[in-house]
């Protein structure tokens, strides 16, 4: 696919999704109400993705303050929904409704995994936040889609965050040990070929056992900042140059952005699952402006599925805008880190 073809595909997708979400028969109460207040009809006025700026930024507070039923498209009526949560340490967390998106996203992702490192039929282990998160079902679906089963070890990041805020670092370490103890037991005593985990947990598991020695051939990793040096360290030392590392960038609202193959720079660049989701790197001072290639800006996400329409959500991350590549002929986001990481202390990487 060329960049132009990708762009046409995106425009078609946008048209289709707007037609769905702003139609009285299929749209959800939230967007239909929005349309009645906005005084314009996106189906008529948004002709291509270039017009996406007609929408203001989607506010994530809406996902906490609005009832979930308000986001259920009438076209999905009669089908009970999954509730997936994001973030939150106190009070009501932000929630997103969903049905099959996570399956589509992870089936697409599965197509990018090399059988050599993620053997079909292999069992998986997921070590990370489960509970109400989309990731819990998604990784299990990925394992099963590839013919295996999935073991789970839970880590509650909200509890870890509270401990860090209270400076109870001993307790954080005890909790992490508790998680790693369970993971190591499963890895040692069950046939596990593939793993999903977060960078910090990956390092901690690698301190206890040889990951390739335990028979794990591929690790897909997501979560916090992945600097080139950290990625190199994981590849060369934690995974001993044997187990394949696949970094990913994702969340409940987007799905999963995969990385281009790592090279000797170990700089990680992600490509959104376009046209289901679009990542832009925007000027934080004027978010209508896309940053030039090679420059840092704030990450803006637009999600375009029949289950969920979310225009121009400003992520809490910044990244370098990277050029399209053959496999992903649209913009990538590189060296993702918390927005403002260079200016202020950001509590991240709790797991």
């Amino acid at each position, binding site marked *: 696919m060329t960049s132009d073809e990708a762009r046409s595909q995106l425009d078609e997708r946008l048209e289709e999704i707007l037609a769905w979400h702003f139609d009285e028969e299929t749209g959800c109460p939230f967007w239909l109400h929005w349309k009645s207040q906005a005084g314009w009809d996106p189906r008529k006025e948004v002709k291509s993705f270039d017009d996406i700026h007609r929408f203001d930024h989607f506010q994530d507070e809406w996902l906490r303050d609005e009832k979930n039923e308000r986001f259920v498209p009438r076209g999905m009526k009669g089908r009970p929904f999954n509730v997936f949560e994001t973030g939150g340490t106190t009070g009501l967390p932000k929630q997103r409704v969903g049905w099959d998106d996570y399956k589509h996203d992870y089936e697409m992702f599965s197509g990018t995994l090399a059988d050599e490192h993620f053997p079909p039929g292999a069992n998986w282990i997921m070590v990370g936040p489960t509970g109400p998160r989309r990731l819990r079902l998604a990784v299990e679906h990925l394992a099963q889609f590839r013919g295996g089963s999935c073991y789970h070890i839970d880590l509650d990041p909200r509890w870890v965050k509270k401990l860090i805020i209270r400076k109870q670092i001993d307790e954080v370490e005890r909790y992490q040990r508790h998680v790693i103890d369970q993971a190591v037991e499963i890895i040692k005593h069950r046939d596990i070929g593939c793993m999903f985990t977060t960078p910090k947990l990956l*390092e901690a598991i690698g301190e206890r056992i040889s990951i390739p020695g335990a028979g794990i051939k591929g690790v897909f990793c997501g979560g916090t900042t992945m600097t080139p*040096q*950290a990625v*190199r360290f*994981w590849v060369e*030392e934690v995974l001993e140059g044997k187990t394949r590392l696949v970094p990913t960038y994702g969340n409940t609202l987007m799905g999963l952005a995969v990385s281009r193959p790592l090279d000797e720079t170990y700089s990680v660049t992600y490509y959104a699952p376009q046209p289901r989701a679009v990542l832009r790197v925007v000027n934080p001072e004027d978010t209508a402006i896309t940053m030039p290639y090679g420059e840092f800006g704030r990450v803006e996400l637009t999600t375009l599925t029949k289950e969920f329409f979310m225009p121009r959500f400003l992520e809490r991350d910044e990244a370098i805008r990277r050029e399209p590549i053959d496999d992903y002929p649209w913009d990538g986001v590189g060296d993702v880190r918390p927005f403002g990481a260079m200016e202020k202390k950001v509590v991240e990487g709790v797991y």
Partner: protein
Amino acid sequence: MIPTIPLLRSGSPYCSLDVQSIEAVGGGDEVARITMANSGLIRRDLLDMTRGRAALQKFSASDLLDITVSAGDIFLHDDLPVGQEGQLQSPDDYLLSLAATSGLPHALIRMNMERLHGVFGEVPTIFKGLSRGLPPEILDGGHFLDEGVRLSFVPTTDALGVILPSNSPAVNALWIPALAMKTPVVLKPGREEPWTPWRVIQAFIKAGAPAEAFSFYPAGHDGSAAIIRRCGRVMLFGGDDTVSQYENDPSVEVHGAGRSKILLGEDEIENWRDHLDLMIRSVSANSGRSCINASCIVVPRYADEIADALADALLGMSVRAQDDPEASLSGFANPRMAEWINGAIEEGLKEGGARDVSLEKRDGSDRYVLRDSMHYMLPTITRCQSIDHSLGNTEFLFPYASVIEMPQSEMLDSIGKSLAVAAISSDEAWIESLIAADHIERLNVGAMATNHIEWDQPHEGNLFEFLYRRRSIQVA
């Protein structure tokens, strides 16, 4: 060519992909590049530090003492490798690099070089003092018969972690003796000051110490945390918050504010002019940066006169060019530090009960001065009505002291925890009570400055006792 300083992982150089530029103070030219360790790498390395100790065990402790002494001469005089590209750094290059990134005056850097050289050279005496006279062979075998008593010491850690600051090269003196104690070191340098620990390591290696005994990890806060959590023994530097955070952790030794003091006894107060030079040195040596600089002078009478004389004497300690041989006042590369200190003094003065005598001597001209992108605090003597005043018993990183008047009989109970106390008196009963005081760490009796150091005395904790504990041993 600008050097790129790598990590040392048990002696092996490793160039991280996270390369940061170190620039001259005030946004000047790039002086060096430093490669930063990620915290996972540090944690993984610290899982097994036995290689460094095993390498040191191949030497006798006496040999290691000799190596240390020799390393001191090398540190002071030789060209030593710096960075990855095989470049060499002469002592003058070292001085200029450190001056560029720290803003310290050349004269003070030379003084600190001499001081570190002194520590290297005195390590045999330091060892003797810290081990209470035991011969170095005590560390060579499993046990040792000393005057009929069998002694055995077991290491408390595989490595000593040290989180170094950016503003004080002399603090490297504190870890130098660890090598002769067969303990590898894991150093995290301050961001602007990789130069001194790197050069000390290179001097040790050139003198014959095994490279495996040295780990050097420039890193961010998460790297420091990894060292603090994973090294069995850690030395770090910080303020009161850091001290209180670790005060119940026997594996962490925090070097915090010293709140060192001069106490002038009733029997010597009439001779206060004879001790003025001593007071000036105690307050101003090393630009007042050390924890053993006096920050409070307590006298039974003549507080006004003493404050006046001290302020007068310190007026000459002015802001000069960095390479001026007479420069003795260090600036702050970080303006926030100077602003914070100045603000704290201003707030204290607003409370009442204290006056800035130096300010009066300067006819009100500011104590905070900016020159050549460096931020300076001019020497400041305050006259406080009470030691409990917020400016009375405090410490700042520049030549600062409060002068307080109180009866000798109240001094001991009023001074609080003090790192160094110079008690100028011959009153035996009073001296006995000072000797018995647990809140005084280092007691100098008689006409001696607070910063006077005798090498056989421990400094802020006993390094030998930090790194070893005596174990019971019975041999049939």
